[in-house]
């Protein structure tokens, strides 16, 4: 039996009005402006840009406001917005070696060309709530020091000179770069597709998977070779002009994980790599991403695939929080008919087991 039901239109309209009211909160408190979110909740903006897979600080700020601070909902809004826009092209790959570095640390070498630059970091803070922020206070000017012109080569490049670390796959310059926003994800996926998936994946999910590898579920023996944060230039190859045009700068975070590798039948013992890259300042995300990237290479490197983080299908099919939230939250929607059918079945079975007549169906 199928019963079509209608109704709830007014209830829905009123629920949306109530939502707008709840979003505003106490009207005696000044309303927050997207520019304030953009400037003062920058890490939330960065996360929404990364998981919404769209670099646009102003848009992410509005989405955070609209979503009442629910960052998964905000990423959903950003994804919906991007689906309305035409694509003009793909950028030249950004060059992270040429980054205007704001932060750069290595856990593998103390003395690296260009040095260890802490930048704006929570590291070394005491995690004591700062009640001065309650009232708001002027912040002192940041300190300045002479900036030398020393280049900041990637730390992994230093190891690469001695062949102590595997080289990155060069790729085929003529092959198209697979894009999971255009072609449905097909398994097994190449490392390029896996990195795209992880880059837009949920930070919590990626973090937990990365953590699981450290606790022994697919150990990768990682060292944080380098984490760098800063601005890189984006260039678009213009078909109109026949050359690449600069579009401006974006901030990205990059994590190079260096992993111990004891070698295999075909590979000598040397260090291997895991890689993480994200929009904005998303350090935890890129570290988790690099751990999971390396774990997913287990098959390629001849390691036994037995842990969740090494299972390509498990990781790639569950990393996207917009997909995940859609499927989990759809359970809220009416399933009256499905449930009625199950209910009827259970009653019938229960009735038979009791040796009774099947119970009468409840009134609809």
């Amino acid at each position, binding site marked *: 039996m199928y019963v079509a039901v209608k109704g709830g239109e007014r209830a829905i309209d009123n629920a949306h009005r109530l939502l707008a009211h709840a979003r505003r909160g106490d009207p005696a408190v000044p309303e927050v402006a997207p520019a304030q979110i953009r400037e003062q909740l920058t890490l939330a903006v960065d996360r929404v840009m990364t998981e919404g897979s*769209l670099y646009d600080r102003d848009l992410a700020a509005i989405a955070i406001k609209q979503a009442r601070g629910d960052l998964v909902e905000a990423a959903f809004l950003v994804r919906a917005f991007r689906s309305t*826009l035409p694509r003009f092209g793909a950028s030249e790959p950004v060059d992270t070696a040429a980054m205007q570095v704001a932060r750069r640390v290595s856990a593998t070498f103390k003395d690296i060309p260009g*040095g260890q630059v802490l930048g704006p970091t929570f590291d070394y803070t005491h995690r004591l709530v700062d009640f001065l922020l309650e009232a708001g206070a002027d912040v002192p000017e940041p300190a300045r020091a002479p*900036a030398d012109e020393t280049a900041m080569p990637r730390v992994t490049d230093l190891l690469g000179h001695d062949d102590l670390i595997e080289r990155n796959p060069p790729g085929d310059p003529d092959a198209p*770069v697979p894009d999971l*926003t255009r072609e449905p994800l097909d398994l097994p996926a190449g490392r390029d597709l896996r990195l795209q998936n992880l880059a837009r994946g949920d930070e919590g999910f990626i973090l937990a998977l990365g953590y699981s590898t450290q606790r022994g579920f697919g150990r990768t023996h990682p060292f944080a070779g380098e984490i760098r944060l800063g601005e890189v230039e984006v260039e678009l190859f213009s078909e109109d002009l026949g050359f690449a045009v600069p579009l401006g700068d974006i901030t990205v975070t990059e994590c190079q994980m260096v992993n111990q590798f004891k070698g295999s039948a075909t590979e000598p013992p040397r260090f291997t790599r895991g890689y993480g890259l994200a929009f904005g300042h998303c350090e935890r995300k890129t570290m988790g991403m690099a751990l999971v990237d390396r774990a997913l290479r287990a098959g390629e490197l001849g390691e036994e695939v037995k842990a969740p983080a090494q299972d390509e299908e498990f990781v790639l099919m569950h990393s996207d929080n917009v997909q995940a939230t859609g499927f989990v939250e759809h359970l809220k929607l009416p399933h009256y008919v499905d449930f009625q059918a199950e209910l009827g079945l259970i009653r019938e079975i229960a009735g038979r087991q009791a040796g009774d007549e099947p119970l009468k169906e409840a009134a609809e």
Partner: protein
Amino acid sequence: MATVARATVGELAALDAMAGDRAEMLRAPEIGLVMVRGRIGGDGAPFNLGEATVTRAAVALPDGVIGFGHVMGRDKDKARLSALADALWQAPATRDAVEALLAPVRARIAAETTLKRERAAATRVDFFTMVRGDN
């Protein structure tokens, strides 16, 4: 173009007066996406990182010069002004004026870059070794 891409609308606004009514909008400002790519491990094969909003426009001058503007973000005015800058820079009669307009923008960008570098440099770690005594 790198300077124009980093300029503000205010810094480019004078281009309108420079163009007068000679510029024809060949392609109205349009908001779209560019897929930003990275490389595996920083220097390996490319992969798709995520998209960025980009606005583009094209204008034509009477002598057939076409100017293109591509800027990050969703500011249609900035895309239009960028296209105008490109067209007027290509026209010999206005190139010097465009360069004069962009000179302070270049200086502003350079100063900001230096400031960022100096602030970062102040957070550079100076390691010192705790020397163990001989005895």
